[in-house]
């Protein structure tokens, strides 16, 4: 089957994505505003189309567009957002006078025929924010061109050169060999001021105050999210980070995949980090899509099932599912699950007021039964605590009376389960969850904490100590920490002052 991938955006990033998609034998449907650089019969470009909303799941997303001919619906197998970002001059530009240009504007000057050659050119990066590696890549290459074409003194002021990519590292070495002078300045020491036909750049290089009289200052641009970012992330059902770029600040989404299976983000729309290696990201993304589509299967062992006779269509699960895996059925009065999108986190089951959602055993599996008197029950998130315990194979050595259960996400815990545990005799329940910015299911940890707070309040009203329920965050690799937390929760049983 021929897979068609929707690419949103028509800039360099989108072009990179389209090339990568075509390179692995798929088709691209690209939407944007204005011209698109690629002409290829496997790439269809729709100028002026904007995304209205999407439904469906990987393999068969229904994308609805606003076009000049009214609404259009297209079925696509996967979606890549590559809308780019806005480049704005850094704030020092305001005070720098007319001898200052931005990285973006320099190439036009270099190509201009008539120009009074400058004697000294100062490049500046990291003035407003710590620019990423991509900025260094652009800046260093511009500095080398200036040095080569104009033969003048070239200073390159920066706070950091991130050379983790070999091309940047290479350019940096070449630039130094060609005579570009790199200087590291201390934070907040930089000032750029026009002075008698020149521009004075002053800063502290950690040893002394330095000031350079420049004929031209070239400053890096700052990346800003486009205004449409937030509405587009909502339409796509994916996250936004604290700076307003695409995708969550979450350890599980460092690359191009998002919380919604089959939807990817690449390039500048992810913020500076997205520009580190756009071509690599595009190639990886296209390949990942192809591999998933060629043999499409659920990604979770256990996925949610909804009992249509119990569902009251309250929409609560829909509001909570972090993976866009639920939708209202077209032909039944019930919510239904997209089987390829569900990641089995169980968050929906924990919030459903009708108990209409079932994951086998609510996704919980017993790791160790308690022997003797029941003392401590530990719920281990399978993304962290479970891994940590498996790694050191310590389960057998835990004290008597400890029972361990594995859960797909801490967000899957239902308050009534814990009440039943206390009823069964456990004196304390310990929930070992992932750190909240590392929750595989985005908000599972936060959802669980709210429910647990409400449960503790209720239990306290009944005269049951709040710390009968203890929540702790742990990380996958830290086995010792997990063990220590289990032991301390165990040892503190009975020590707490009631209420």
């Amino acid at each position, binding site marked *: 089957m021929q897979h068609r991938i929707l690419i949103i955006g028509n800039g360099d990033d989108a072009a990179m994505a389209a090339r990568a998609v075509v390179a692995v034998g798929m088709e691209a449907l690209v939407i944007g505003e204005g011209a698109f650089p690629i002409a290829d019969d496997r790439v269809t470009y729709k100028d002026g189309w904007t995304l209205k909303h999407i439904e469906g799941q990987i393999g068969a997303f229904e994308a609805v567009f606003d076009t000049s001919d009214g609404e259009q619906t297209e079925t696509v197998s996967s979606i890549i957002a590559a809308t780019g970002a806005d480049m704005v001059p850094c704030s020092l530009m305001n005070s720098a006078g007319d001898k200052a240009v931005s990285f973006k504007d320099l190439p036009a000057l270099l190509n201009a025929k008539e120009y009074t050659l400058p004697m000294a050119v100062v490049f500046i990066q990291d003035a407003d924010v710590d620019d990423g590696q991509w900025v260094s890549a652009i800046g260093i290459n511009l500095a080398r061109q200036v040095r080569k074409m104009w033969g003048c003194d070239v200073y390159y002021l920066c706070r950091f050169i991130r050379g983790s990519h070999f091309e940047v590292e290479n350019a940096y070495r070449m630039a130094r060999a060609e005579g570009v002078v790199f200087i590291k300045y201390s934070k907040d020491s930089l000032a750029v001021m026009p002075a008698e036909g020149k521009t004075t750049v002053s800063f502290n290089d950690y040893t002394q105050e330095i000031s350079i009289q420049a004929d031209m200052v070239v400053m890096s641009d700052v990346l800003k999210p486009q205004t449409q970012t937030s509405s587009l992330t909502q339409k796509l059902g994916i996250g936004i980070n604290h700076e307003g770029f695409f995708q969550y600040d979450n350890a599980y989404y460092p690359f191009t995949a998002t919380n919604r299976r089959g939807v990817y983000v690449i390039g500048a729309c992810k913020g500076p980090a997205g520009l580190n290696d756009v071509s690599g990201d595009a190639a990886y993304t296209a390949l990942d899509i192809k591999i998933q589509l060629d043999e499409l299967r659920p990604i979770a062992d256990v996925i949610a099932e909804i009992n249509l006779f*119990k569902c*009251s*269509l*309250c929409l*609560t699960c829909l*509001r*909570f599912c972090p993976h866009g895996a639920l939708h209202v059925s077209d032909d039944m009065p019930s919510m239904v699950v997209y089987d390829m999108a569900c990641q089995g986190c169980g968050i929906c089951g924990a919030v*459903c*007021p*009708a*108990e*209409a959602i079932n994951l086998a055993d609510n996704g919980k599996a017993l790791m160790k039964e308690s022997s003797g008197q029941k003392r401590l029950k530990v719920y281990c998130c399978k993304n962290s605590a479970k891994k940590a315990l498996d790694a050191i194979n310590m389960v057998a050595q835990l004290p008597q009376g400890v029972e361990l259960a594995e859960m797909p996400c801490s967000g899957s815990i*239902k*308050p*009534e389960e814990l*009440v*039943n545990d*206390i*009823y069964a005799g456990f004196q304390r329940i310990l929930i070992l969850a992932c750190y909240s910015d590392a929750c595989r299911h985005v908000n599972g940890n936060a959802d669980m904490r709210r429910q647990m707070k409400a449960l503790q309040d*209720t239990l306290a*009203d*009944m*005269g*049951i100590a709040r710390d009968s329920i203890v929540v702790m965050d742990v990380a996958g690799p830290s086995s010792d920490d997990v063990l220590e937390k289990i032991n301390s929760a165990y040892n503190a049983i009975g020590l707490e002052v009631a209420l």
Partner: protein
Amino acid sequence: MIVGQEKPVTELLDMIKPYKRVLVLGCGTCTTVSLAGGQKEAEFMSALIKLNAAKTGQDVTATTETVKRQCEWEFLDDIADLIEQADAVLSFACGVGIQAIAERYPDKVVLPGVNTKFMGMPIETGVFQVRCAGCGNCILDKRGGICPIARCSKSLLNGPCGGAEDGKCEVNPEIDCAWYLIYNRLKAIGRLDDMKQFFEPKDWSYGRDGGARKLRKEGIAL
């Protein structure tokens, strides 16, 4: 929908104290959707009842069931056995459902698990707000689709009162002034003239007064 809120657990535990076999009965419609009395809340309450009984050394059993709507006898008839076996039914429906049980099972104790709050809707996840006061004679056509009775703190038919500030109500700055909303919406739909429509004091015989109200659906009612 009818929006409810679970009563505090201590109040409920106190309420069921005289009874040994309690049926905790959820309602599968309004109180499910308003997250106050569906199967989940009923199961949670049952678990708490059992836990409390174990803690205090009482002999209490709690069973849980949910019906589609407690406010229809047919749905209640489906669980006649369960109701018979219980000493008391702790109902998680709104006041309508609770009374329906009392009526259908004249010798059974029925207890309210939920405080019935208002007719409203979710304005964000887990947050509900009143929209209609059931006045019996709707005037939304003249008030831009925004109910001054339910949403103006003083239920002014002819507003605003003059105390609003920055669009917020003087009674509580967290509440939008209903009349500010009404004005803006009338303006948006080009019906500002409706502001001038004066209403005489409301005839509450359509609404709260005049004894228990009853409605016949002509053409259907026998």
